[in-house]
């Protein structure tokens, strides 16, 4: 009985001590997910290009734009799905790295306290022993080490798909930005072409309103340009941080140290249990 009790006390102690640093790092990484909201906003803006351009288009240009508009609307759900898959993964990672998620030390302490509060009450050794086995099991499968292992597996398995998804987001943001540039030049160009002809004594009011509108639009487009840049930067930062987390995994798998820089297009994923799955991917 004594040995079992001291054994449980020791286990309770062990459950509490291990490094928290990687968990904190992963939590910090997962907390960055809201920064991808820029991608969601800008893909919605991309979808709505026609609505904003329409007042400035000629009848022929309007007809052409409608065909492009339907393509943008068709593609939009895929942008949303991409964003959702990435944020779901990051949320899962964050939840798995949650503080105390694998921490059974509270339970283990409560259980050992339960035993110690009732010494020599007639509980048989084998009762206590069965109980102690349960405690031991929890300590083995609980604790920071196990949490860290689960996280490492999720990071490794998620490496290639997350990098691919972030790459795709980055590429799409580039297209959104170029589309935005053309929209801006269509709208601003129309104003720039028409204003000189309205700048006559008879239509001073029209010219004044048009110039004021021009200034307003210029400001709006400048801000939107900055938002595209920022969104792309955020995606890049997330991709770099994810790669860095993976490089820091310990113990490093034998072939992981030789992995080329993550940013190189030909970067290989680290060995992972889903390698077969990835190989099967088209």
């Amino acid at each position: 009985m004594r040995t079992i009790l001291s054994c449980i006390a020791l286990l309770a102690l062990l459950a509490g001590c291990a490094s928290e640093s990687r968990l904190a790092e992963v939590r910090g990484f997962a907390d960055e997910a809201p920064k991808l909201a820029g991608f969601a906003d800008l893909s919605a803006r991309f979808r709505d290009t026609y609505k904003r351009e329409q007042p400035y288009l000629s009848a022929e240009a309007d007809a052409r734009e409608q065909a492009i508009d339907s393509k943008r609307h068709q593609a939009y759900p895929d942008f949303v799905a991409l964003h959702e898959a990435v944020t779901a993964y990051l949320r899962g990672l964050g939840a798995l790295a949650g503080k105390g998620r694998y921490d059974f030390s509270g339970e283990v302490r409560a259980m050992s306290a339960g035993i110690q509060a009732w010494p020599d009450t007639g509980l048989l050794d084998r009762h206590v022993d069965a109980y102690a086995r349960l405690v031991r099991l929890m300590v083995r499968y609980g604790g920071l080490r196990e949490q860290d292992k689960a996280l490492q597996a999720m990071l490794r398995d998620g490496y290639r798909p997350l990098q691919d998804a972030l790459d795709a987001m980055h590429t799409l943001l580039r297209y959104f930005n170029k589309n935005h540039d053309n929209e801006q030049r269509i709208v601003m160009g129309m104003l720039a072409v028409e204003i000189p002809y309205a700048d006559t004594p008879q239509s001073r009011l029209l010219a004044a309103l048009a110039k004021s509108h021009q200034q307003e639009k210029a400001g709006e487009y400048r801000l939107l340009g900055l938002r595209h840049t920022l969104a792309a930067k955020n995606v890049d930062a997330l991709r770099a941080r994810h790669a860095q987390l993976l490089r820091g995994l310990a113990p490093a798998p034998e072939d992981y140290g030789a992995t080329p820089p993550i940013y190189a297009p030909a970067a290989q994923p680290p060995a992972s249990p889903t390698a077969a799955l990835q190989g099967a991917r088209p």
Partner: protein
Amino acid sequence: MNQTAAVPRNHDLEALADSLSACADELHARLMRALRRQQPVEAGLSQGAAQALFEHEVALRQQANNLYVEAAAIALDGMGATQQELLELAAQARRTIRGIKRSKDLAGVAADLLGVAAAVAAMQPERLLTPLQNLKSRLASLHDENSA
């Protein structure tokens, strides 16, 4: 295989769209120069001619934007499997967390049961009350969670 073929294809479309945009920029610069040179504007380029030129510029930009959206669709072609993997990993994380929570619940039930057993073994019924109440409320909350 699909993906490796798709990468150059959307890059090709993007490059073509970029050059169309650049042509439109060039046309725009010329148009603006022509408009600035003539003071008053009525003296030179007519409004109709300026509008016609601008219409060409708009058409070029629309063709470019049409290619950008097509390139975007192609860039997403290979993403289905990738997204599925990410969603599956997220689901796995949720399952793991549920499993851990169940173990913690089990540990709580075991601790309560031990308290009950000890009170019974010690033949001290007055000590039975607290562990029994604990057990009852824990089981009730577990039941609520399962039925929720």
